[in-house]
């Protein structure tokens, strides 16, 4: 084996860092579940969780209400926030790397505008299946944008971004039109609330529905992490090193869009997580996607659990859209990172 001293101090200890970050996700999740209109002490929470394991002998020192709140409301909500945060951060990291554009985020290639239109149609025409239509809209818009970007010859990052911006504006116009001509203030409010993102309707069922899409998307992205590194050299060099750039681009866009669409369908459009988390990880630990992708997922999960806890407790009993919290904390933090480390890493 070759020993090399590496410029980023932590490169040899990546496994340990990822393990530590995983523990932090669990700790923050547990802590977040104690907050709320009915506070649950941390030790009671721990006992209730341990009692769930078969064979555990724990005396029930808690009320049934606590148990219902914890297992049916708070824990699924924390789990969903963690999954969505991880999904958005991973997909943001992928798009930033794939398009070599620091402003890329999970919503760049039509996912948000497509999902927004799908959800709006579901609400305005009272169809009901908001998640399903949002999911279909997200994937449909991505496929359409990819096809449009391809039509002009070879797909380059620039044509993808431009096609994404153009079609995104077009779909948003339709969404705005539907909102404007619809005369129910309640529905309009429902659309606006959905657009800003919320975990208020979380259940174990939404976690279960989301998991397969995330699983497939994550496996594909992690297996391609090394190839994503090579793509940083630019299309020509990557191709000359033997990477089938066109095919890899399709695979990565499909996987990243799939996990974003699943996230958006369950929780609406939550901004800034997918933009700032990968940047923060890249600035601290460097651009190797083999570390960047899993670390972004863990930090994204932690960040969104915390943001959602504020969203549901700050103005209790009413709830804030979590997108307001992520933007409110995310934007200043991003500016701080930029000022601290002017050497941009993408």
């Amino acid at each position, binding site marked *: 084996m070759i020993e090399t001293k590496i410029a980023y101090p932590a490169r040899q200890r990546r496994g340990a860092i990822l393990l530590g970050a995983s523990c932090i996700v669990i700790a923050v999740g547990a802590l977040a579940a104690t907050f709320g209109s009915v506070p649950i002490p941390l030790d009671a929470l721990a006992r209730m969780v341990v009692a769930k394991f078969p064979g555990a002998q724990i005396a029930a020192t808690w009320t049934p209400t606590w148990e219902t709140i914890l297992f049916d409301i708070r824990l699924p909500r924390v789990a969903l926030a963690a999954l969505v945060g991880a999904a958005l951060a991973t997909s943001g990291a992928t798009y930033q790397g794939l398009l070599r554009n620091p402003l890329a985020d999970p919503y760049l290639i039509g996912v948000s505008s497509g999902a927004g239109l799908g959800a709006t149609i579901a609400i305005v025409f009272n169809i009901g299946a908001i998640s399903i239509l949002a999911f279909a809209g997200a994937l449909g818009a991505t496929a359409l944008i990819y096809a449009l970007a391809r039509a002009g010859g070879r797909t380059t990052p620039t044509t993808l971004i431009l096609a994404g911006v153009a079609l995104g504006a077009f779909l948003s116009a339709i969404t705005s039109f539907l909102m404007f001509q619809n005369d129910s203030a309640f529905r309009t409010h429902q659309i606006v609330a959905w657009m800003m993102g919320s975990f208020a309707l979380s259940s174990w069922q939404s976690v279960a529905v989301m998991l397969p899409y995330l699983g497939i998307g994550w496996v594909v992205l992690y297996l*391609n992490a*090394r190839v994503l590194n090579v793509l940083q050299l630019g299309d020509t060099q990557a191709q000359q090193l033997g990477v089938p750039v066109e095919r890899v681009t399709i695979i990565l866009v499909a996987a990243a869009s799939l996990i974003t669409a699943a996230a958006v369908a369950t929780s609406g459009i939550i901004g800034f997580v997918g933009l700032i988390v990968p940047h923060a990880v890249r600035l601290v630990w460097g651009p190797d996607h083999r570390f960047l992708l899993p670390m972004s997922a863990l930090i994204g999960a932690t960040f969104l659990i915390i943001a959602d806890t504020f969203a549901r407790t700050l103005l209790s009993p009413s709830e804030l859209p979590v997108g307001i919290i992520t933007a409110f904390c995310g934007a200043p933090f991003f500016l701080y990172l930029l000022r601290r480390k002017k050497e941009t890493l993408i």
Partner: protein
Amino acid sequence: MNTLQLRADKISFAYQDKTVLNEIDLAIKPGELVGLIGPNGSGKSTLIKCLSRALVPQHGRVWLNGYELASLAPQQIARHIAVVSQAVELPPGFTAFEIVLMGRVPHLAWWQNENARDKQIARAAMEATATWSLADRLVNHLSGGERQRVVIARALAQEPQVLLLDEPTAHLDVKHQIEVMELVRRLNRERGLAVLVVFHDLNLAAQYCSRLVLFKEGRVYKMGAPRDVIAPDVLREVYGVELLVVPHPQNQRPIALVGGM
């Protein structure tokens, strides 16, 4: 023994309606160091891209040992042909070693990580190019000459039989120019690599190459030994300037000089 041959067979390439390459015939054999010279915009870089399948010519074919290049997967091509482009941009934040390790991409399945042998090969490539001491440095902190040698090390890590270099000495000072060219010549001789180098500097080309190919407006204007190509009448035709050609005092190779007052 390396017997790989790369051959362009009457290839033509046009961007939209502007023809850049016009029926080029060219073969590079193992152990040969061929220099490609010609005025700006005469199609030199485009030829390199066609020979590495970054571009596919509209007419004619490129053959790699009897296989048509366009029918091979990028990965198969990259196992045989390595390219060093001019003034390469490298993504910031990666170490020199990580960049050189990317040269192993053609030999790995898409889901595989590099193993100890790949690292050993990358290290050997860095030692051969005197860049091993830079292994842990971030590429965005390297000088132009260091970066160029790192990219050549990456090309070596591909274990190619053909090396295509597009102005590898551009933007380098004279010391680094010589270092890079001595390195290329050594690799050419010791490993029997077939090497094609695009040059801006006619004298550097004449010093290092056994054969020169002179391009004019997308065609091969003249091909042959340096003394046949670097000649006042040929250069006048191609570059449209009067140059004085004298023999090198040590090896008699031609040197083109700007005429004095």
